């Protein structure tokens, strides 16, 4: 066994996992506040990558101006989507809302293809390029910096959720909508805020993911892996998204390098089935008790 190789693979896996975790956090934010499983998260992430590309390559903005604008655009998209598509579905069956997000994903993919074409594109290089060695082990710089940024963003999200007014309101709403409402929390605004925060996070993640592997209208498939992440971690748990993201990143990397690239998805989805059978509500998820 080549331990250096295993370490390098594990590091690369954890780096990729950090991005899964970040997108997973976005996913969990929406689920916590509105109980919507948002399958369009991959497409929102993709749109983030394209908006960034459009701002830099199309409008000629500098990278450091484009990143905040991309995140703002993500937030705006979140607000619009919540208002136009999700609010009218309030009270409908979760499946219907879930299908709405699938439809939304399809619309976004089409819009991107209409605007930028179907060919894969590459984002301008902005992540430092010097190779990183942790001891002997090599770590691709893009992955390392991507993971670092993701970790910072996640830390920010966790702190905001814990201490900020909006975060407390969101957690209160997640616990009990009625009680939160009667305590004077504007639940509708919380819904809106959670979508904005989540879509902004996803758009930011899209910039990083796009910088690593380029952007294309099919990169929404990233969302499928994120879906596995949040199911494994538990749909309503930020900690779950973190652990799930790192775990799935690790599993994919190990399966990919020791079994072959074609086993990546097989490994993660087998893990998903296993988790669903053993612990359907995820590692950290809340088990909901059903009453008649």
């Amino acid at each position, binding site marked *: 066994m080549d331990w250096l190789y295993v370490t390098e693979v594990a590091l690369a896996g954890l780096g990729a996992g950090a991005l899964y975790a970040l997108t997973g956090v976005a996913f969990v934010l929406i689920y916590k506040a509105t109980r919507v499983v948002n399958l369009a998260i991959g497409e929102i992430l993709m749109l983030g990558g394209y908006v960034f590309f459009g701002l830099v390559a199309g409008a000629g903005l500098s990278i450091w101006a484009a990143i905040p604008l991309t995140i703002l655009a993500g937030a705006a998209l979140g607000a619009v989507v919540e208002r136009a598509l999700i609010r009218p579905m309030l009270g409908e069956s979760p499946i219907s809302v879930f299908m709405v997000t699938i439809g939304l994903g*399809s619309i976004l993919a089409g819009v991107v293809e209409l605007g930028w074409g179907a060919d894969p594109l590459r984002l301008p290089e902005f992540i430092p390029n010097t190779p990183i060695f942790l001891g002997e082990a090599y770590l691709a710089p893009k992955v390392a910096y991507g993971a670092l940024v993701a970790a910072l963003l996640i830390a920010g999200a966790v702190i905001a959720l814990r201490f900020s007014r909006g975060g407390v309101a969101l957690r209160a709403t997640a616990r009990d909508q009625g009680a939160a409402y009667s305590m004077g929390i504007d639940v509708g605004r919380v819904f809106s805020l959670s979508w904005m925060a989540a879509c902004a996070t996803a758009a930011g993640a899209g910039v990083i993911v796009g910088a690593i592997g380029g952007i294309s209208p099919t990169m929404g498939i990233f969302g499928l892996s994120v879906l596995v992440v949040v199911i494994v971690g538990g749909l309503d748990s930020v900690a779950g998204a973190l652990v799930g993201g790192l775990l799935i990143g690790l599993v994919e990397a190990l399966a990919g390098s020791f079994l072959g690239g074609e086993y990546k998805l097989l490994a993660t989805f087998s893990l998903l089935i296993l988790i669903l059978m053993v612990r359907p509500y995820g590692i950290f998820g809340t088990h909901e008790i059903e009453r008649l």
Partner: protein
Amino acid sequence: MRIGTFKLSYAADEALFDTRVQWVWLALLAASLVLFPFVAGPYWIYMACLVAINVASATGLNILTGYTGLVSLGQAAFMGVGAYTVAVLETRVGTPFFINLLVAGGMTAAVGVVFGIPSLRVKGLYLAIATIAASMILHFLFAHWDLTGGTRGLSMPPASLFGIALDQPHKLYWLVIPVTALMVLGAANLFRTRVGRAFIAIRDRDISAEVLGIPLLQTKLMSFALSSFYAGVAGGMWAYFFRVVTPESFPLINSIFYLAAIIVGGMGTILGGILGATFMTLVPEVLKLVVGWLTPWIPDALSLLAPIRTIVFGALIVGFLIFEPQGLAEIWQRIRRFFHLWPFKT
């Protein structure tokens, strides 16, 4: 104008088609289906076969999702199982096509039951996600198993009936349409039986259904089996229709397509499955036509077709869910009601 129907027996009340008018319409429909291949061009016959295959599969999904309330995003992968079964039987064993189709249905039903097992533990969204996992795993099998020809897939000879090779849409039409008609009728009748009613009870409230003495596990798996059987037979017909089966023939997006078809058509109605599958199959063709007309004005209109199709697909799902959750079947009912009540209510 019709105000109501007067029934003298329970049998009449339970009948699938309860008035003479309905029988007349049905006969007209059957007659036009028989006449269709003699008047329509090859392209339209081709489309008719494709529509029929999609109707069969959507009806199967409707049994599971529309009537039993178990959402599945694995329908396309299940069709793949049926298609591969047919292709393997046709190339390696050489059994006649009706046996192949039945075996394909049976095989897919078995696979469906295996992947339906998570439905004991999870339901709703979690089940939908479990079926995504199922379709990923099936895909892996299709692409990496020697029996299924790996990524190259399998090519197969046409079905043959009394020595006539059914190698053309206008010949296959006589296989696809009757089989689909039988399957749709079967599904319609299913919900007049105990099993079918049990499905509906589970959909409406599974815990109540259990209290009423419906064995949940058995019934849910039965629903999975039936729905997968439909998918398998539809997949088998698909295989005879295209005569090549590759792992890329049944992507996840096709599962979404079938789910969208029953949403657009109307969940939990047989008519909904038919209308939805027909509508969703024809929309891209209509779009193609429209884009074709636009070409003189917008020279690269053709290159806009695919993204527009994707957008329209998504917009149809979202639009129907928000504005017409009961789907086309409900619109159809409204039109019928209008004519029934016509002179009185305008």
